[in-house]
């Protein structure tokens, strides 16, 4: 089962390697990891999507909490979060396929962020599942490159995680 953990950490060097090292050496499976600064410049927010049973996710939480740099941590409730991931896809196109690809882009609410004679670069921000659908639809065309940020998420409603 995929679960999302949101972590506030001290914003200084070495924190990310401590977190990622922990996952590697304890054998936790990680689907995605996204990190960025918050409104407080001393604090970064890490969003991790892990794939595992309750035992594993509890272990992940407890081991992360032991890191001195981890300020706060919460498992986000499934179904009650806004979660998004940004993806850029570069697809090869010809004058013939361009409009077909554009149709897909429109239907998926994605957008074209770069265009050349032979390529289209598509930008899309959505849930990880919806990004998969877009990838699937683009498969018949020649996908040249894909880059994804990993999921970021916030809990819905008034619930917040702050220092």
């Amino acid at each position, binding site marked *: 089962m995929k679960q999302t953990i949101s972590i506030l*950490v*001290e914003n200084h*060097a070495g924190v990310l390697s*401590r977190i990622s090292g922990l996952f590697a050496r304890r054998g936790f499976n990680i689907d995605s990891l996204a990190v960025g600064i918050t409104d407080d410049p001393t604090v970064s927010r890490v969003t991790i999507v892990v794939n595992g049973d309750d035992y594993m996710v*509890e272990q992940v939480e*407890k081991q992360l909490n*032991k890191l*001195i740099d981890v*300020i706060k941590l919460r498992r986000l409730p499934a179904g009650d979060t806004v979660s998004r991931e940004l993806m850029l896809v570069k697809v090869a196109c010809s004058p013939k396929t361009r409009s077909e690809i554009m149709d897909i882009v429109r239907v998926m609410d994605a957008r074209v962020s770069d265009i050349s004679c032979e390529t289209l670069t598509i930008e899309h921000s959505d849930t990880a599942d919806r990004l998969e659908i877009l990838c699937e639809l683009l498969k018949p065309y020649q996908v040249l490159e894909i880059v994804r940020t990993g999921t970021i998420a916030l809990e819905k409603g008034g619930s917040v995680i702050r220092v």
Partner: protein
Amino acid sequence: MRMTAAQAMAECLQREAVPVVFGLPGAAICPFYDALSQTEIRHILVRQEQNAAHAASGYARISGRPGVCIATSGPGALNLITGIATAYMDSIPLVVITGQVVSDLLGRDVFQEADITGSCEPFVKHSYLVKRAEDIPRIFKEAFHIASTGRNGPVLIDVPMDVQKAELDFAYPEKAEIRSYKPSSQGHPGQIKRVLAALKEAERPLICAGGGVFSAKAEEELRVFSERSGIPVVTTMMGISSIPPQYPRNLGMIGMHGAPSANRAMNAADLLLLIGARVGDRAIMSPMGLSQSATIIHIDIDPAEIGKNMGTDIPLVGDARQILLQLLEKLDSPPVPDWTAEYRPASPVQPVPVKEGCVCAKAVMASLFRQAEEDAVLAADVGQNQIWSARGYRLARGRFLTSGGMGTMGYSIPAAYGAKLAAPERQVIAVCGDGSFQMQMMELATLCANRIPVKMLVMNNGRLGMVRELQDLHYGGRQAGVLLDGNPDFAKLAEAYGIRARTLSNASEIDRCVQELLESDVPFLLECRIDPAEPTL
């Protein structure tokens, strides 16, 4: 006050009332060594850095304060790693100080550069790579705080040479303020109630005491709680000496090499109260079965240990001493009737017949425990000697030290002299095998140079005895790489260092030789010729 960071580091150690440090210098730590030499702090020069960490560990375990060890950049720091990892596994508080190449050259693979904070990441509670001299007071304050609170452990401070030379205005913080680190020591009152309710229901409750009892300094509270509740106690290897062997409700050590009666008692219990024991695989080999047959209450300062290796019915996070005091305050049920009659430890470990020219290790241990002072400290190494020491352990008010989690050979002698420096008035004995002795024998020089009267017992069977036994049992007796051919004459080797020594090879001389060892007021090595066939159990 204006001073260099190196002077500030030495000043921090003085503010933390550190009387002794263990280390070996090199170029990248010279500014600090220079400053250290201007203080009253005693420096013990080890002969290999790993031993500095072990010695600091022995010091920490007996003094109850973080042990401090020092090494230079690169190989010096890398040699510390085994010692740091050993301390980490056994939750021993260390503050480890390493020199680093100058900041501008970091990452250029210059001479004696190693990413020590990166290398040690899995084995430290926390680490710092100091970037600015003015951070030194705060970092040292935090390091001592982190090492010695919550679940104790090693903290590494890596200081580039240019930072050591830079100046700062020194002011030592009163308190460490770390917003992300607030370990809780009090047990949750609701959970305390649940524990007491479960204890009332239980007919065959049992306490399993681990090394956390020492970390929390809860030995006294453990005994009082056991007496008042009537609940008998087994210990893990790390928990040996947390409750006296003579205490009538102490059923002995559990685990792979534990007393069969203690293991059977644990399997018979209907409630298991784990106190500062992390359910390591050598202590509790089938946690799943146990959690089905008994109500499991797990008391630990580290929430991550609860539920990690064994399902838990009632988790209780906190400091073992605080929690025992909370339990004692609310305990109102009468002592549970004694259910342990059939689980009493058999008579003390029995000597076995051995071949001519050898003595029985178990008989030597029995003699040692008969004659040693009752508050002696015994540092056991790893292997057969460790199990002989653990199973024979009989000191009423003594302390048993060993590398329980990591099983690091070469631990006993440095840990023993660290312990001796923490408690000069106590007898301190190191027990090792001929294999483990040779991983630390350079430390004989440290003992001589500093006149530390550690008593050493070398159980010489010419083998890596425990591995030999494993090969006999599971590999068809094919002995691979276990014969220690080329062993020196250990007594002569000791004498070459000016250390008094005896070789014991005759059963009739055991008591006299052990007596001579114990009465010596200078370092003494007793080599015991052990029959290679003598089993661990």
